[in-house]
């Protein structure tokens, strides 16, 4: 194996005497070794990486070189001289003179040097004639001097002039001044970059030095897929409900009848939420073909006449209005279906239900509102549940979400009584913000279904988007949900650890 460039360099350095001013110029060394300068610089860098073997000081060297045009002038003479010499003694019309070697550049330079004269009154137009007998090609001589490496001897003005004529180029060369380092040795072996199967097999890794890694650089990102941040939060919330013993409700029905969405929940038919401005009604299929007959009659009665200890709303309840199909405005419509099924069981058994799914509102859109969002809902049905139980469950649930400071505000929901809004103290905003809504389902809702009188149903709900936006610091909901999502945000989103 022939010695490496690094080894050659070390050998040369070894011969250098010590003392101030000692050392090697990388440019000269490369020339002496017959190497490309960059190759030598590579060796310098690899030696530097070893520590104190060598010292290398970066230097910038300025050098003058001929441009391609300069090389031409060096060979053929300057344009002005070439023009002057090709001009016949009797001269030529100006237009013909311009076609001579040297061309217009040569003409204007020769005119500026007063080597030529223009006879304007000559017959057949202006005529160019020589004004002097002989000329000297100073430009060519200067370039010859540069070519000999004596550019520094030229007057500054002349160099600038040649540079302006694009005949000379000023080149900055980066080079190194190399000296022995404190740990200088010629016995530096070539460093290995990586461990190879061969080294492992032969055990040669034990003898070889390895090039150090740059630990301050980032690694290569893995090629991988990513989960959507909102759905990561959904997974965590599902997990929380499952940890708390809640069973998942089948909410995979976006189309719902007004009956299950409103009437069954004791929401009167003139309620503002049933307005065109708030709810998406369907054109096709416009009406639900089927409502549960006996139960529907009971719902009609409790709305229009009351009963079960209630005054009712006392209005004319219309079946046609209840059959109007819509896109569900809350998942509570599914809770109503589940409670109705529960009531039809032979014997009541306590249940805990949850769901997280899409709901739809015909609202005006802005940075925090979309026409569809995800509702998180929890429902518990058992005998003898109290408002204190609801608050206890809410505390458990929100603690698992990482929200520990809670307080409760009286509120109004058409289908719960008592109702309470859940507020939590927001450290960032320094105020109490609403984080959910909750309540005890009204008897007018439960008793027509046929649930036993001593059964209470407590429930709460919140949106999935709001805690997600807070968790991931997203201000515009459109960047989170829907096709205008920023995929980079999806790629970069961290794990969802709600209580961390």
């Amino acid at each position, binding site marked *: 194996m022939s010695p490496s460039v690094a080894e050659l360099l070390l050998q040369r350095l070894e011969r250098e005497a010590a003392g101030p001013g000692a050392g090697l110029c990388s440019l000269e060394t490369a020339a002496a070794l017959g190497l490309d300068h960059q190759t030598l610089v590579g060796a310098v860098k690899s030696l530097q990486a070893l520590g104190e073997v060598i010292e290398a000081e970066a230097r910038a060297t300025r050098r003058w070189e001929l441009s391609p045009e300069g090389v031409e002038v060096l060979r053929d003479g300057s344009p002005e001289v070439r023009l002057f010499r090709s001009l016949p003694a009797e001269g030529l019309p100006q237009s013909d003179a311009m076609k001579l070697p040297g061309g217009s550049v040569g003409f204007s330079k020769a005119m500026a040097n007063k080597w030529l004269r223009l006879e304007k009154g000559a017959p057949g137009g202006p005529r160019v004639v020589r004004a002097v007998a002989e000329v000297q090609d100073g430009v060519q001589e200067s370039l010859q001097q540069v070519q000999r490496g004596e550019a520094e001897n030229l007057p500054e003005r002349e160099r600038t002039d040649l540079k302006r004529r694009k005949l000379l180029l000023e080149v900055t060369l980066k080079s190194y001044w190399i000296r022995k380092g404190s740990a200088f040795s010629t016995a530096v072996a070539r460093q290995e970059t990586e461990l190879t199967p061969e080294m492992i097999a032969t055990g040669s890794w034990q003898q070889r030095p390895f090039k150090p890694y740059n630990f301050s650089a980032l690694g290569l990102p893995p090629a991988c897929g990513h*989960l959507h941040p909102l759905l990561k939060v959904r997974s965590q919330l599902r997990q929380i409900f499952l940890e708390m013993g809640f069973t998942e409700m089948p909410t995979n029905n976006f189309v719902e009848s007004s009956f299950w969405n409103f009437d069954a929940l004791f929401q009167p038919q003139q309620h503002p939420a049933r307005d065109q401005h708030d709810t998406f009604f*369907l054109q096709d299929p416009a009406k639900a073909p089927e409502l549960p007959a006996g139960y529907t009659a009971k719902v009609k009665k409790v709305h229009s006449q009351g009963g079960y200890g209630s005054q009712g709303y006392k209005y004319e309840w219309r079946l046609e209005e209840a059959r109007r199909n819509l896109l569900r405005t809350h998942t509570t419509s599914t809770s109503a279906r589940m409670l109705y099924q529960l009531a039809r069981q032979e014997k009541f058994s306590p249940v805990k239900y949850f769901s997280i799914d899409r709901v739809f509102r015909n609202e005006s859109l802005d940075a925090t509102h979309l026409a569809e969002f995800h509702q998180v809902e929890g429902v518990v049905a058992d005998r003898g549940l109290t408002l204190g139980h609801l608050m206890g469950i809410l505390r458990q649930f929100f603690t698992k979400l990482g929200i520990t400071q809670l307080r409760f505000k009286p509120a109004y929901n058409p289908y719960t009584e*008592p109702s309470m809004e859940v507020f939590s103290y927001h450290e960032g905003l320094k105020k109490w913000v609403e984080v959910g809504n909750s309540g005890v389902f009204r008897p007018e809702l439960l008793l027509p279904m046929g649930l036993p009188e001593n059964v209470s149903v407590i429930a709460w709900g919140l949106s999935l988007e709001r805690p997600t936006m807070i968790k991931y610091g997203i201000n515009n909901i459109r960047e989170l949900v829907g096709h205008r999502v920023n995929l980079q945000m999806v790629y970069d989103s961290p794990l969802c650890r709600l209580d961390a």
Partner: protein
Amino acid sequence: MPTVSVKRDLLFQALGRTYTDEEFNELCFEFGLELDEITSEKDIISKEKGEEKAKGASDTILYKIDVPANRYDLLCLEGLVRGLQVFKERINLPRYEKIIPPQGEGQRLIITEETVHVRPHAVAAVLRNITFTKERYDSFIDLQEKLHQNICRRRALVAIGTHDLDTISGPFTFTAKAPSEIKFKPLNQSQEYTASQIMDLYRTDSHLRHYLHLIENKPLYPVIYDSNGVVLSMPPIINGDHTKISINTRNVFIECTGTDITKAKIVLDIIVTMFSEYCEKPFSVEAAEVVYPNGKTIIYPELAYRKEKVKSDHINKKIGISETPSSLAKLLTRMCLKSHVIGNGNNIEIEIPPTRADIMHACDIVEDAAIAYGYNNIQMTIPKTYTIANQLPLNKLTELLRLDLAAAGFTEALTFALCSQEDVADKLGMDISATKAVRIANPKTAEFQVARTTLLPGLLKTIAANRKMPLPLKLFEISDIVVKDPNTDVGARNYRHFCAVYYNKSPGFEIIHGLLDRVMQLLEVPPNEENGYTIKATEGSAFFPGRCAEIFAKGQSVGKLGVLHPDVITKFELTMPCSALEINIEPFL
């Protein structure tokens, strides 16, 4: 939730003390109100129309207070103050008194049968010897507007008219006439118009135009006359100018007409209970007679006090507290529900005043007891309800698949369930009728015309919005699509779909095909014809000819995969080749 705007200083004066903003906010929170905003007229105008226009506007501090939607008795300063003062036990709830004038001296409103098809109900009452001030008058007008917007459902259910009784003479007639036969000078106008002209006049009115549709297409319009033929009002549009009230008005005739008699009675009760405070004999209301077409006469306002009996045990058990009956009675009394212990000491008798139409059931009484007790004073407990949790099998499968799809290098998208008809049909080269799409009747924009029938458009739009991202883009979504289905109780159903797209400089069919193989492997469906899955060449309008296959598994077609048609790519504003896969995952449950 309605918002009531009151002058802070006026509020504090009426409450007999001042509060800091924080203190008042706390009081609201405890009572179930929300101090939504602290502002001034100047602030409001400045925000809406710019600072220039706000010059000279009042900078009196206003509190904007959110009131629960069923508490009509809190929709004005008078009601708010009364509610809070009773809550803080600074005053006793006043008793509202109905004064029935001697036979033949009271006001009468006669309903004719023509009203039956347009606005069949009317109720009326008189506020006698009232003293208005500028503030009281403004509050009176404001309350009517708040009631109109809320319980009256933008005047559809009930419309309120208030008149200076001294300018008219009864009996009054509530009838309905052809628009051309009704002629009067509407409120604040300078000349007379026929009803038809009035409708034209208000067609561009920013406020009134919203009510025109309520009667516009009816052959007869409702109208109220006095005994001399003076028009009081043409409900639910406008009053006559003749009977206009001012701060100098002493006797107010109130009529409420509507399509819902229950709500009309509530509205009348609220107006008279709130403003009888300013009558010479406070909290007294002069009754009026309403004569129905069948000759039946009813005296209004109802001002009914209803009694309910609730066991104190019941209240304690529902809330989770253990208060004595007398203490519960005291709590309820603080909520304007005058209560006392009766019988053997365990029952509480509660009197529901005419202002509290929201109390329909014992559960409403329980809530008021809980509010007065203080929600945040209730001991939190964990219910002993023992249950075993179950996941919905479809969601369980979805969760498992999502993780493995991300592990396969695809990124999860979350797109809208609603889209334009164009997205699911035209852009995919299909006719909308072939999609069985569920159509929305009242979309505000084209983005919400139908529920999606396929996940593909959402993924393609996601790519279009992320064209600056490095290629390839590999996206997937597992979510529901919706189609009409006459066999379900609502006529439509969801299907859980899985869709994936690969977008790069070359179509990468083999990558999408490989993903299908991987998914089938995960689902333990082998690649064979007997009991596994196969793909067979087919054509699909969204796919490039010869580059589309149908996927068969579990004995049925479950979806398609292939290279998208260049027309589809262009229509979704994309420029690169793209292959896609979409299947229904429900057969794999």
